[in-house]
C-alpha cells in the first residue's frame, strides 16, 4: 500500500513539460509586463513629440513664406517708389530728354544694381517720348499693351515677369503722371534676375527652395522660371481657391517622382502672385526620424536586456523550483521509507516475541526429551544416538530462529552506536579479504580507489562495516553468474564521506528500484536472502544522519552511494558513545 502511495506521489511530480510551460509563462510575464508600459509611454511621448515637431515646422514654414513675401513685396514697392520719386522730382520736360533719362538710369543702376533694365517716357497716346536702355527700337508703341491700359486705369502697374526672344526675363513697372493737363507714363523694366535672387535667398537660407507663381500657373521666379504648369494643376496641387488673395497654407504633397515635400504658400503683390516654399519631407523630419530611431533602438535594447534578463532569471528560478521539487520528492520518499521501516520495525518486534515464546517451548521440550534420554532405561535404546541427533537439531534450529528474530529486532529497536576512530581503507581491505574468495570463484575483479590522504574516521565503525559488507556482498551476488568488475571508491567531499560501490552486473529493473530499501524485499532466490540487508543499511546510514542512494541501469550495472557527514575536528569525540 505504501508502495502504491509512493508511485502515486511520483506520478504527481511535475514533468519536464510542466517546467517548460512554467518557464514560458514566466518569460512571457517577465517580458510583456515591463515592456507594455514602456512601449505605451514611449509611443505617447513620440506621438506628442511628433505633433509638437510638426507644429514647430509649420510655424517655421509660415514664417519663411511671410518673411519672403514681405521682402519681395518690399522690393517691388521700393522700386515702384523709386520711379515715383523720379517722376515727382523731375519735370516731364527734363525726362523727355533722352540724355537726361540716360543719366538717371545710370544713377539708378549705380545705386540699385542692374535691377533697372531701362526707363521710358510714354505719352497719353501710348507712344514713346523718350527711352534709356539697351533696346533702342524707334517709335515704340504701347497702346495695346495690357500693362499700359492698366496703368492708365489704375495709375500704376507691376506686371508679371515676361521675356521676349531677345529680352531677358523682366517685369514692367509703370506710373501714370500728369503734365499740363495731359497724362504721361514713366515705365521701367525690372530685371527678373532680382526676383530670382530674392527667391533663391529665401530657399537657400532655409535649406529648401522657393519660387513665385502667378495665378495662371506660370513660374515668375525660382528654378522653374518660365514654365507654365497650368492654372488647374496649380489650383489642385497648391489648393489655391479662385479669388483667394490672402492666407498662408501649410501641407504635404508627393510629386510625380514619388518625392514627398512639405509646402508653405502665401500671397504677394496683392494676391497676384503666390510665393511657394518647399523642402524635402525627409530633410524636414530628419530630426524627428532620428528621435524615433533612437527611441526604437532604446526600446529594442531595453527589450533585449529585459528579455535576456528574464530568460536567465526564469531559467534560474525554474531550475530552483525543479531542484526544490526533487528535494521534496526525495524527502517524501525518505519519509515513506522511514515510515515503512518504523511500521515494519514495530511489526517485527511483535512477531519476534510471538515466535520466541513457542520456539522457547519447542527448545525446552526437546531439552526435556534430551534430559529423559539420559536416564538409564533409555540407554539401551537402539536409536538412542539418532534421537539425540534429532533433538540436537531441534535445539539448533530453535537457536537459528532466535538469531533471525534477533536480526529483526536489531532492525527495529533503538541502538546505541559506539563511535570509534578507524581507517576506512583498512576496513574496506578487511571486507575484501573476507569476500575475495567469493569474488575469485565468480570471476569478479575488485578495484578500489580510496583517497590517499583520507583522514582517520570517527564514526560508528561496526555499523559502517555492516553497511559496506552488505553493499559489497550484494554486488558480488549480482555478478555471481557472469562475473564482472567491482569498483569501490571513497572520498572526503565537503565534510562528507562519500563511498561508492559500483558493479557492472545485470542492474536493477526500474520498477524494483523504489522498493529495494523495503524490508523483506529481495530478488535473491528463496532461502538465500532475507530482504533485510539493504533495509538495515538504509536504517544505519539514516541514523548516522547520512544518505544512501542507488542508480542502476539494466544490463549496465548498479552504483550505491553513501554520504555520511564527517568533520575532521570530530577526532576530539573519539570513543564517545553516541546515542542515535
Amino acid at each position, binding site marked *: 500500500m505504501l508502495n502504491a502511495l509512493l508511485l502515486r506521489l511520483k506520478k504527481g511530480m511535475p514533468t519536464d513539460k510542466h517546467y517548460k510551460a512554467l518557464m514560458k509563462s514566466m518569460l512571457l510575464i517577465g517580458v510583456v509586463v515591463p515592456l507594455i508600459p514602456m512601449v505605451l509611454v514611449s509611443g505617447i511621448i513620440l506621438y506628442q513629440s511628433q505633433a509638437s515637431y510638426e507644429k514647430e515646422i509649420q510655424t517655421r514654414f509660415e514664417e519663411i513664406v511671410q518673411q519672403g513675401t514681405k521682402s519681395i513685396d518690399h522690393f517691388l514697392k521700393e522700386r515702384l517708389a523709386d520711379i515715383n520719386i523720379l517722376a515727382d522730382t523731375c519735370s516731364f520736360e527734363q525726362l523727355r530728354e533722352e540724355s537726361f533719362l540716360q543719366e538717371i538710369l545710370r544713377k539708378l543702376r549705380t545705386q540699385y544694381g542692374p535691377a533697372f533694365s531701362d526707363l521710358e517716357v510714354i505719352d497719353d497716346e501710348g507712344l514713346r517720348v523718350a527711352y534709356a536702355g539697351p533696346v533702342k527700337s524707334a517709335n515704340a508703341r504701347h497702346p495695346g499693351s495690357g500693362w499700359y491700359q492698366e496703368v492708365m486705369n489704375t495709375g500704376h502697374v507691376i506686371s508679371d515677369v515676361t521675356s521676349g526672344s531677345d529680352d531677358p526675363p523682366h517685369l514692367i513697372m509703370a506710373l501714370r503722371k500728369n503734365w499740363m493737363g495731359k497724362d504721361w507714363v514713366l515705365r521701367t523694366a525690372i530685371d527678373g534676375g532680382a526676383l530670382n535672387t530674392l527667391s533663391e535667398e529665401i530657399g537657400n537660407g532655409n535649406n529648401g527652395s522657393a519660387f513665385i507663381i502667378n495665378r495662371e500657373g506660370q513660374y515668375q521666379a525660382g528654378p522653374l522660371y518660365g514654365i507654365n504648369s497650368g492654372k488647374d494643376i496649380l489650383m489642385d496641387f497648391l489648393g489655391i481657391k479662385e479669388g483667394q488673395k490672402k492666407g498662408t497654407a501649410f501641407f504635404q504633397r508627393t510629386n510625380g517622382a514619388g518625392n514627398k515635400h512639405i509646402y508653405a504658400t502665401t500671397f504677394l503683390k496683392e494676391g497676384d502672385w503666390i510665393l511657394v516654399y518647399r523642402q524635402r519631407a525627409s530633410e524636414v523630419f530628419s530630426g524627428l526620424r532620428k528621435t524615433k530611431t533612437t527611441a526604437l533602438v532604446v526600446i529594442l535594447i531595453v527589450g533585449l536586456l529585459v528579455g535576456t534578463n528574464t530568460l536567465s532569471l526564469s531559467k534560474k528560478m525554474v531550475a530552483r523550483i525543479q531542484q526544490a521539487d526533487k528535494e521534496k520528492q526525495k524527502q517524501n520518499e525518505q519519509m515513506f521509507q522511514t515510515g515503512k521501516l518504523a511500521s515494519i520495525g514495530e511489526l517485527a*518486534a*511483535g512477531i*519476534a*516475541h*510471538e515466535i*520466541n*515464546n513457542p*520456539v*522457547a*517451548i*519447542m*527448545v*525446552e*521440550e526437546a*531439552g*526435556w526429551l534430551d*534430559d529423559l534420554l539420559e536416564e538409564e532405561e533409555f540407554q539401551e535404546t537402539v536409536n538412542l544416538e539418532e534421537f539425540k541427533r534429532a533433538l540436537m537439531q531441534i535445539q539448533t534450529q*530453535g*537457536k537459528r530462529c*532466535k538469531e533471525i*528474530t*534477533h536480526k529483526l*529486532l536489531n532492525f527495529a*529497536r*533503538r541502538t546505541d552506536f559506539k563511535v570509534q576512530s578507524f581507517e576506512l581503507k583498512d576496513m574496506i581491505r578487511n571486507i575484501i579479504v573476507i569476500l575475495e574468495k567469493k569474488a575469485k570463484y565468480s570471476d569478479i575483479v575488485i578495484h578500489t580507489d580510496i583517497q590517499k590522504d583520507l583522514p582517520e574516521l570517527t564514526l560508528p565503525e561496526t555499523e559502517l562495516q555492516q553497511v559496506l559488507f552488505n553493499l559489497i556482498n550484494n554486488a558480488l551476488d549480482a555478478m555471481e553468474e557472469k562475473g564482472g568488475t567491482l569498483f569501490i571508491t571513497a572520498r572526503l567531499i565537503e565534510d562528507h564521506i562519500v563511498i561508492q560501490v559500483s558493479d557492472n552486473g545485470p542492474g536493477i529493473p526500474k520498477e524494483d528500484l523504489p522498493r529495494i530499501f523495503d524490508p523483506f524485499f529481495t530478488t535473491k532466490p528463496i532461502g538465500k536472502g532475507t530482504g533485510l540487508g539493504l533495509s538495515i543499511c538504509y536504517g544505519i546510514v539514516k541514523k548516522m544522519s547520512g544518505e544512501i542512494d542507488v542508480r542502476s541501469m539494466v544490463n549496465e550495472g548498479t552504483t550505491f552511494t553513501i554520504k555520511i557527514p564527517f568533520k575532521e575536528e570530530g577526532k576530539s569525540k573519539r570513543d564517545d558513545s553516541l546515542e542515535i
Partner: protein
Amino acid sequence: MSERFIMLVDDEVPFVETMTKRLEKRNLTVITAYEGQEALEKLERHRNLDVVILDVKMPGMDGIEVLKAIKKKNFLTEVIMLTGHGTMESAMEGMRLGAYDYLMKPCDIEQLLAKIEEATNRKRDSEEEKRGMPR
C-alpha cells in the same frame, strides 16, 4: 550445591511445565505461577525463595510491576528477568530496578542454571549480611 528454591513465573503454561521438570531433574525445588498477582501471593507464603524467574510480558500485572512489588517489600529473593527479546528494553529496565540479570528466550538450560546459581549465592550473601547487622 545446596538446595535451590525457585519460582518460575510465566503465562506460557507448556514452557513453565517443561522448564519446571527440567529444573527439578537438576535438583532444584520449583514452584510456579502463571500470573503476576499469583506470583506475589506465593512469594508472601514462601519467603525463603532464592530466585524468581520472571517473564516480562504477561497479561494483567507484567513482570516489571511484579519486580517493583518484590523490591518494594524488601524481599531478598533475587529476580532473573526472562524475555522474548521483543521487550528487551523492559528487561533492561528490570535490571535498573534491581533484577539480578536477564535472559532471552529460548535460553540454554545450562546458562539459566549458572545464573540461578549466581543469584542464589548473592541472595544468601545478602541474608548473611542482614543477619550480621545489629538491630
